[in-house]
């Protein structure tokens, strides 16, 4: 017992070098660079209203990125989220426009549909543990969007009550509701991941699923829960997105899965599971969002944007693996 304590103590020796070599510092650096770039581009950028406008230009996607952190940390992946957004948005819109259900109830329906979509993913994956999350969510990705297309065909569904657009555009003072909701959820997710047993269990599952199972963690139950949560938050995105657009089409939210995964991976969460911190993911959400906003200000074509975001993703993941990164890491090890 005394020995284990000593080992733990030895590992917890604080070193400034190690402290500053964390991924999050690199992210903060990039974040500052992006903001400096935006400031040079637009002199109105660095004001409260400028920053808030920039924030609301991308924040609805970020709601998917929050549970995606959990999904990647337990070593899974979910690429059906974009389609879940479409299906829940379409069902919400149609139950208001075709069935005449009051909008408040429709929002609840939207959340339920999203939750159900996530639950189906989780259910299949936990019943048939041999299956890969990649392929199951690929199937449901085609299925969910397919159902959305079946319902709306090539039409759009619009005409929502006036207050519905307030969900996205509404503000308290000058702070959008959405930002407040996001901050609350981000804080809750961060605390759950880092400060609760549930969070530690997720890390354990991601590092070694078999070992966690033998340690008495209900691996499949937690996986089911995480997938269901992802579906629920896809529905939250659907509500904000529909409120913003004022209409919905079956192709809404296309490619959101890739953006959410890019945000999380850039944030330093390993796709192999068990590694990464919540702060990183949140900073990465803002990096990608502000970068897109800034590039949009100087009329960067969307095609060039694709290249920039793609390169950023690859370079970010490759950077720690390159010679330079390993050199630094080796030095710190010998130093210790």
């Amino acid at each position, binding site marked *: 017992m005394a020995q284990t304590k000593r080992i733990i103590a030895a590992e917890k020796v604080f070193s400034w070098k190690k402290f500053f070599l964390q991924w999050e510092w690199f992210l903060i650096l990039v974040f500052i660079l992006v903001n400096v770039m935006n400031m040079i581009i637009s002199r109105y950028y660095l004001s409260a209203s400028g920053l808030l406008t920039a924030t609301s230009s991308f924040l609805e996607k970020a709601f998917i990125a929050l549970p995606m952190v959990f999904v990647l940390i337990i070593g899974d*992946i979910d690429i059906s989220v974009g389609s879940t957004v479409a299906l829940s948005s379409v069902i919400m819109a149609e139950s208001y426009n075709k069935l005449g259900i009051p909008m408040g109830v429709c929002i609840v329906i939207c959340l339920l549909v999203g939750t159900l979509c996530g639950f189906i993913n989780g259910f*299949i994956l936990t019943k*048939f543990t*041999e*299956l*890969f999350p*990649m*392929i*199951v969510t*690929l*199937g*449901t*990705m*085609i*299925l*969910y*969007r*397919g*159902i959305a*297309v*079946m319902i709306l*065909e*090539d039409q759009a569904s619009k005409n929502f009550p006036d207050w519905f657009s307030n969900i996205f555009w509404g503000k308290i003072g000058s702070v959008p509701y959405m930002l407040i909701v996001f901050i609350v959820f981000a804080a809750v997710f961060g605390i759950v991941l880092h400060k609760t047993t549930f969070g530690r269990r997720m890390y354990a599952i991601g590092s070694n699923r078999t070992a966690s199972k033998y340690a008495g963690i209900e691996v499949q139950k937690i996986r089911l829960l995480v997938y269901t949560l992802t579906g629920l938050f896809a529905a939250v995105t659907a509500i904000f997105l529909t409120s913003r657009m004022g209409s919905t089409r079956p192709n809404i939210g296309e490619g959101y899965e*890739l953006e959410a*995964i*890019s945000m999380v*991976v850039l944030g330093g969460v390993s*796709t*192999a599971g068990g590694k990464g911190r919540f702060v990183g993911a949140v900073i990465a959400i803002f990096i990608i969002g502000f970068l897109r906003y800034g590039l949009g200000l100087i009329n960067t*074509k969307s*095609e*060039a*944007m*694709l*290249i920039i*975001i*793609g*390169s950023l*993703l*690859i370079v970010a*993941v*490759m950077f720690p*693996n*390159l010679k330079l990164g390993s050199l630094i890491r080796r030095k710190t090890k010998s130093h210790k």
Partner: protein
Amino acid sequence: MEKIKSIAKSLTKSREISLVFVLIILCAAIQLKNNQFLSFANINDLLVNATIMCVLAVGMMSVLLIGGIDISIGSTLALTGMVAALIMRDFPQTPAIVSALISIGVGIICGLVNGLVIAKGGVIPIIATMGFMNIFRGATYIVSKSQWVHKEQITPAFQDFTLNSTFGINNMIVVAAVCFAVFAYFLKFTRTGRKIYAVGSNAEAAQVSGINISRIKIIVYSIMGGLSGLAGALWVSKYASAQGDSGKGIEMDIIAACVIGGVSLNGGKGTMLGVVLGCLTLGILNNALPLINVSSFWQDAIKGLIIITAIILNVLTQRTLDKNNLKRREL
């Protein structure tokens, strides 16, 4: 009852046989609904439309065999096809074969970059290819200045390739058949082919036994790129136009075809016969749904449902297989 059981047992003996069985039932059901389905003209149509998928599936199978995945192929297809089409637009004298070779060459370069980033950069395949999916798609729009290349701008010789036939069989089907044959031989009987299986089944053991894993990875991704280039050329030739968004989402169909055919995403498991059957399944679905008057708006939902059912059936077959094997060992 015993008899039924023994038949069921022999059917579940191998994945391929059970898949053939499912396909026969599917075809029979469609034929009952519409007797045009099994006519020569329709089967020809079905195969021609499935060829691009087949060419890509062959490459995807090798990628999946080493435990990787490549979701950038749709973008590679668009980029290579666009480059070939632009060359024909700007230099109409270029022989058809040269533009096709350029398309394949660009594809190999794309694949090589993918392979280098994955093998040398240590980026996991799904993330690397997701990044390149964006990069290649963006590059396609940039080289084409977001414009289409139209039918009149593509040399007739190039368009004719997919219309003509060799020995009465459409050239595209010939290309797909050659791909299947070459890769069946390559994977089964050449040293590199066996190494691919070895890397996929157990990378560590393969490394210890002296296989250069990163070289195998780079080779496989380059092959995948080259085949995407070939598919890009076929696409431009068949549809007589090159667009920035061609081939969007095709990677999902290809992966689905491989998985239905029993290729494991874990690597090391999968046969060419299975992939052929997987491609046929998706080809039949794409062809038959309009024939039996299913609204085109319903097709994606049905496709998704069938993919999920197929992979679940696959697992159930595998479970019975394993159980039977265990029983045999006990005896």
